[in-house]
């Protein structure tokens, strides 16, 4: 039973991280119908920024809570800045191009950013400092659920609630929903669509950065390539839940997290990534619109 619980909680942690990244995909897709392939790289840049800032601050001798806060803030600021810039450079000029063009541009951006970090920093795995402290009250259960995992799950839950409130009740949230429904109509009633798209990218990127810091802290090492696999898996989660749907992304991410956790726990750990991809392929075959997505019929 303990083993089961451990896998369950491990899956929950994994799923929470995937959810943070998947939200960026799903929000961007909902608004501009683009798979932002470079999203995984934004997450990787968030983790790298946090690592660099945290290392500098550690050498300067700050205490760990201050480092955690500053490093996370830096990661969020920089990831949003990158997300915003990537959109302006690689996607905005292609807004009216055929669908394949922005996708190829996104792949190019992803390769560019990976190699940018590789050249500017290193290709080795870098150790990521453990910033989240061990809580005393978690002591009795720490063998199956660590404090870091608790922080991940709790942060994700809080962020989800905030995001839902933001989209439901703020003006820009309403503008986002309107743009997702009909871009032309949104323009007609005076919504600045370019601004809405920028805000979407910024929010998605900050969530990815948060995910990046949390997972890097949990796993303890990062390199320039972590964004690729994480990006693909988060995308799988988004598709699983129905791309464009925010609760769908969370649901999909949790299902993916549990699938991976149980499959590696009970079947084999060699094929961890294969399970995720196989799940993606199966979902797309049998339910292309995802679990919570609406099937789209094209009218002629």
């Amino acid at each position, binding site marked *: 039973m303990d083993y089961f619980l451990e896998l369950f909680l491990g899956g929950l942690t994994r799923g929470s991280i995937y959810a943070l990244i998947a939200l960026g995909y799903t929000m961007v897709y909902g608004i501009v119908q*683009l*798979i932002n392939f470079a999203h995984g790289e934004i997450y990787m*840049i968030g983790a*790298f*920024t946090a*690592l*660099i*800032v945290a*290392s*500098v601050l*550690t*050498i300067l001798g700050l205490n760990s809570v201050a480092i955690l806060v500053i490093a996370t803030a*830096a990661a969020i600021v*920089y990831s949003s*800045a*990158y997300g915003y*810039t990537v959109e302006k*450079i*690689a996607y905005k*000029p*292609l807004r009216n*191009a*055929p*669908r*394949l*063009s*922005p*996708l*190829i*541009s996104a*792949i*190019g*951006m992803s*390769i*560019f*950013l*990976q*190699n*940018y*970090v590789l*050249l*500017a*920093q290193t290709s080795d795995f*870098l150790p990521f400092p453990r910033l989240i402290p061990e809580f005393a009250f978690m002591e009795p259960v720490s063998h199956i659920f660590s404090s870091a995992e608790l922080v991940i799950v709790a942060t994700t839950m809080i962020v989800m609630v905030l995001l839902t409130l933001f989209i439901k009740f703020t003006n820009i949230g309403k503008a986002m929903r309107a743009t997702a429904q009909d871009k032309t109509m949104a323009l007609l009633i005076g919504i600045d669509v370019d601004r809405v798209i920028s805000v979407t990218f910024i929010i998605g990127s900050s969530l990815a950065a948060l995910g990046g810091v949390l997972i890097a802290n949990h796993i303890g090492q990062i390199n320039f390539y972590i964004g*690729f696999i994480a990006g*693909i898996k988060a*995308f*799988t989660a988004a*598709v699983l839940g129905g791309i464009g749907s925010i609760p769908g992304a969370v649901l999909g991410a949790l299902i993916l997290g549990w699938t991976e956790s149980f499959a590696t726990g009970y079947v084999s750990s060699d*094929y961890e*990534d*294969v399970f995720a*991809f*196989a799940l*993606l*392929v199966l979902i*797309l*075959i049998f339910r*292309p619109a995802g679990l919570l997505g609406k099937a789209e019929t*094209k009218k002629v």
Partner: protein
Amino acid sequence: MTQEILKSLKAAIWFMFLTFPIMVIKVNTVYKTIEWRWMNMVFIGVGIFVGSFVWRWLLNRKDNPTVKKDHVPVSTRIQSYLAENPMAKRALQGVLLAALLCFPIFMNAYQINIFTVALMYIILGLGLNIVVGLAGLLDLGYVAFYAVGAYTYALLNTNFGMSFWVVLPIGGALAAIFGILLGFPVLRLRGDYLAIVTLGFGEIIRLVLENWNDFSHGPSGIAGIDKPDFFGLELSLNQMTDAIYYMMVAFTIITIFFVGRLQNSRIGRAWLALREDEIACQAMGIGRTRTKLMAFALGATWAGLMGVVFAAKTSFINPASFTFLESAIILSIVVLGGMGSIPGVILGALIMILLPEYMRSFSEYRMIIFGGAMVLMMVFRPQGLVSNFRRKYSFHGVDERLGG
């Protein structure tokens, strides 16, 4: 003008901020030292300041084309001239062929090897071009079929001693079957989902090869694969290099011929039509599933054949040769050269493979340049270096020829 300078200045400052942590700070966590690379920031600032002028100028030129409507780009003009003058076309083909055949006489083995690789990528590019350029299906897992071909030969050769020429068609056929296997379930998907599924498929194949030790020997790969045999001749290493080179020249010519014919055949036109409008296409009576599967299968066949050649040429393979990066390189060959255009793909392959080879000191920047070029290409020249040329048949009226 001051406004323009101000804009560039803003962009420069923005990018200096953006690249600050990653480009400037480098922390050594073991020795606890920080290296501040302020020079990088200066480079970025100056580079972006100049670059943003070029960027805006290019964007402006793209949005407000100053060239006249009937202006025909050089590449199209050359292609239409060649299409209308078969003599000139034959002459050009003859010169190119002669140059290719004479190449090994003047060059050393190293150069020939590089050129052989370039020819392989031309064929891979042409194969992917069927799927991406003609049928408009973005396939990001193309390298999986390449891997299928390579492992087919490696396993059949090392386990059963089967020879290159026997396995060559088997490898191609097996890759085609895998293409259909992948194609069948995913054809209902829209373009961008398809891209991700093919990417996932490519990764699954690689991960299986990496982990299934009993079957594929895992990450350590398979060594000691036989080189192709040419009529049972005993060839020295240099002669073998030459022989493989000539074999690749022959393959390339066959592929170009085949793909060229394919493009203008019934199925080729169906692909183009399907790419442009799926619904209209089905209304015209073109079977969507069949047509798309054909594209997948034919594209995969070439990858499979090249996989067999690759395994035979290097005589050692492991899963590391079949990463997503390889798919990305082949895709950028197609995109850079011009989707759907055969001369474009050839030019793209030559640029992508030969340029990094001859600029060794530059080679670590290879991937970053690929990535950047893909973005710039899509933003400023989505049709690629050589735009796809289709011969136009026009009717000039009856009296022109018959004299009324």
